[in-house]
């Protein structure tokens, strides 16, 4: 789960990581009031979960409250990579002497958290990482011990350039790791961590992703989830226990299992079609789940055919087929549906599906995909 910059900064502040004062607002008028309270030039920053908002014009400096109102009005409602800006963060404009990069992330290869830092922080960090990898310091953390203070000191000494700045930087790095660990984050990133001309050290931006599997033990974080920023279909799918991602094609896909779902989409593309979505209905094919899946897909009017690819596994396919027939009956489907059901008793299953005229049974994935593409055309 991703959270907004302002939410991440609230957590940062709770852990003692210094952030510039700021207020999140939803209207231009509120932005003006917030800027007036700051009493100094402010930055108005779009709160979106996608990256690249700066280049998209979602971050603007305002010297006066009136200007803040103007900039906020321009940014609110803006579309950034498909996400509509609903909130902006109005925060003190801080003078920057240096920009530093610090992140804690799970390194799958090492099977350990990795703390990365670079004295060359800022928007070009990925370029730096590619062209000058030695400019990125890396320290792996043994999760049994946590980050040793000597490790954060080492990083900070390399970043700071002088002893006086190394101390607050080590402190921030240590706290960032502790936050990452305690809140079950999968990413905690500060880019940039700035040094001001008067030698303060501040987190100017904040990025925080949580391990979805661990949200159960942080029930309060559920309130941080921004349902507005997400696709309504994805929100509803999560509520129904499905996994759904909207795409731009016309072949709706309902598959059990994420790998098989991806392989099915790949196959649609391979045979010249365009998948309308990724949808994993998980381990069960009960009629209610099928109905939920279908109604989510049918929200998308560009869908012209629906493809079921269900590997029955241990469940008997004839049982699954009966469930599908029930679901289709209740939905009163208008679109053509191709169903490929594999596993135990698959022949009986195909027989059962023939009873519903809208259903086109198929024996293999390839056959099913080709049929669905043809029916969508």
């Amino acid at each position, binding site marked *: 789960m991703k959270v907004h910059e302002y939410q991440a900064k609230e957590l940062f502040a709770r852990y003692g990581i210094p952030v510039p004062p700021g207020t999140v607002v939803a209207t231009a008028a509120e932005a003006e009031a917030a800027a007036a309270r700051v009493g100094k030039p402010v930055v108005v920053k779009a709160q979106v979960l*996608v*990256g690249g908002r700066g280049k998209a014009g979602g971050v603007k400096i305002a010297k006066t409250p009136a200007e803040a109102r103007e900039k906020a009005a321009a940014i609110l409602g803006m579309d950034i*990579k498909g996400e509509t800006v609903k909130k902006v963060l109005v925060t003190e404009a801080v003078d920057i002497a240096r920009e530093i*990069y610090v*992140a804690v*992330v*799970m390194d*799958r*290869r090492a*099977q*350990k*958290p*990795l703390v*990365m830092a670079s004295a060359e922080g800022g928007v070009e*960090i*990925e370029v730096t*990482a590619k062209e000058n*990898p030695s400019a*990125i310091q890396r320290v792996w953390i*043994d*999760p*049994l011990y946590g980050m040793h203070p000597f490790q954060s000191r080492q990083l900070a000494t390399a970043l700071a350039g002088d002893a006086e700045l190394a101390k607050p930087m080590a402190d921030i790095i240590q706290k960032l790791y502790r936050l990452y660990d305690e809140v*079950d984050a*999968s*990413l905690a*990133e500060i*880019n940039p961590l700035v040094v001001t001309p008067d030698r303060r050290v501040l987190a100017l931006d904040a*990025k925080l*992703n949580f*391990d979805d*599997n*661990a949200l*159960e*033990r942080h029930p309060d974080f559920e309130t941080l989830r921004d349902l507005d920023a997400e696709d309504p279909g994805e929100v509803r799918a999560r509520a129904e226990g499905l996994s759904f*991602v909207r*795409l731009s094609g016309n072949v709706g896909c309902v*598959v059990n*299992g*994420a*790998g*098989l779902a*991806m*392989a099915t*989409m*790949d196959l*649609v*593309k*391979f045979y010249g079609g365009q*998948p309308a979505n*990724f949808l994993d209905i998980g381990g069960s094919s009960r009629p209610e789940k099928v109905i939920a899946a279908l109604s989510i897909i049918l929200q998308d009017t560009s869908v012209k055919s629906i493809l079921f690819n269900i*590997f*029955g*596994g*241990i469940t008997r396919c004839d049982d699954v087929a009966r469930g599908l027939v029930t679901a289709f009956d209740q939905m009163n489907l208008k679109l053509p549906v191709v169903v490929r059901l*594999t*596993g*135990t008793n698959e022949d009986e299953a195909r027989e059962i599906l023939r009873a519903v005229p809208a259903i086109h049974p198929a024996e*293999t*994935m*390839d056959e099913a995909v080709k049929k669905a593409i043809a029916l969508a055309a």
Partner: protein
Amino acid sequence: MLIDRNTRLVVQGITGRDGSFHAAQMAAYGTQIVAGVTPGKGGTKFENTVPIFDSVHDAVDATGANTSVIYVRAPFAADAICEAADAGVRLVVCITEGVPVRDMLRVVPFLKERSTRLVGPNCPGMIAPNARVKVGILPASIVKPGSVGVVSRSGTLTYEVVYQLTRAGMGQSTCLGIGGDPVIGTNFIDALRLFQADEETEAVVLIGEIGGSDEEEAAAFITEKVTKPVVAFIAGQTAPPGKRMGHAGAIVTGGSGTAADKMAAFAAAGIPVAKIPSEITGLVAAAAPALKRG
């Protein structure tokens, strides 16, 4: 490989919905289930035959169980894995989905200290058709004895590929689902090392997914250490981007973890890559012309 006729299985969470269902399935296939564990239900029996214990320690002491399979709920799965390792079980297969990464980071060193192998979590487990043993949830109906090893990060996609192999007359030595979580006990390289050493296995099918860099590392490992033919398939060529973790993900792996990257890594290592699942059997036949089929 890993499981055989000497496998003495303890089922953790045997009285749960999934545990009881799959215990019955595994037993029906021929797996020796010697014990079940459900805290508080010690002293009762599963299906009137398999003794249930309060702890894995009790189960191991009483039955000599050497392998465990876990069907407990996600918040308790990491503890169940550690319990099995602490009780001296040599192989633990964790089916449970949704185990927090932070829990797994502590499980891995705990198991290493005890030389216990973990498969999973969030995986379908494994099945060895020649020995008629399965530990996990892979459907027995789709496999067939033979000499192709299958290793995969996926669930049902594995079934699909295994089913196609079976239909093409290519039986399997062992089918192994390693799970797709960020921290897993057995990765592609571990599995490839086992298949390379396994006398029953003549060729290997590797099924990868987008994300991480396990496939790229597997490709490098195959070049160096695997002499048996390997055929690869990667799911997720059309997956939307944006599941990336800020800048950090790309910086860590040094690559983007896309299907194209992974397919290129295999191709560069001279490993045949199927563009679609139905190409796999043909590539196996070409790569291992001597493979017994039936």
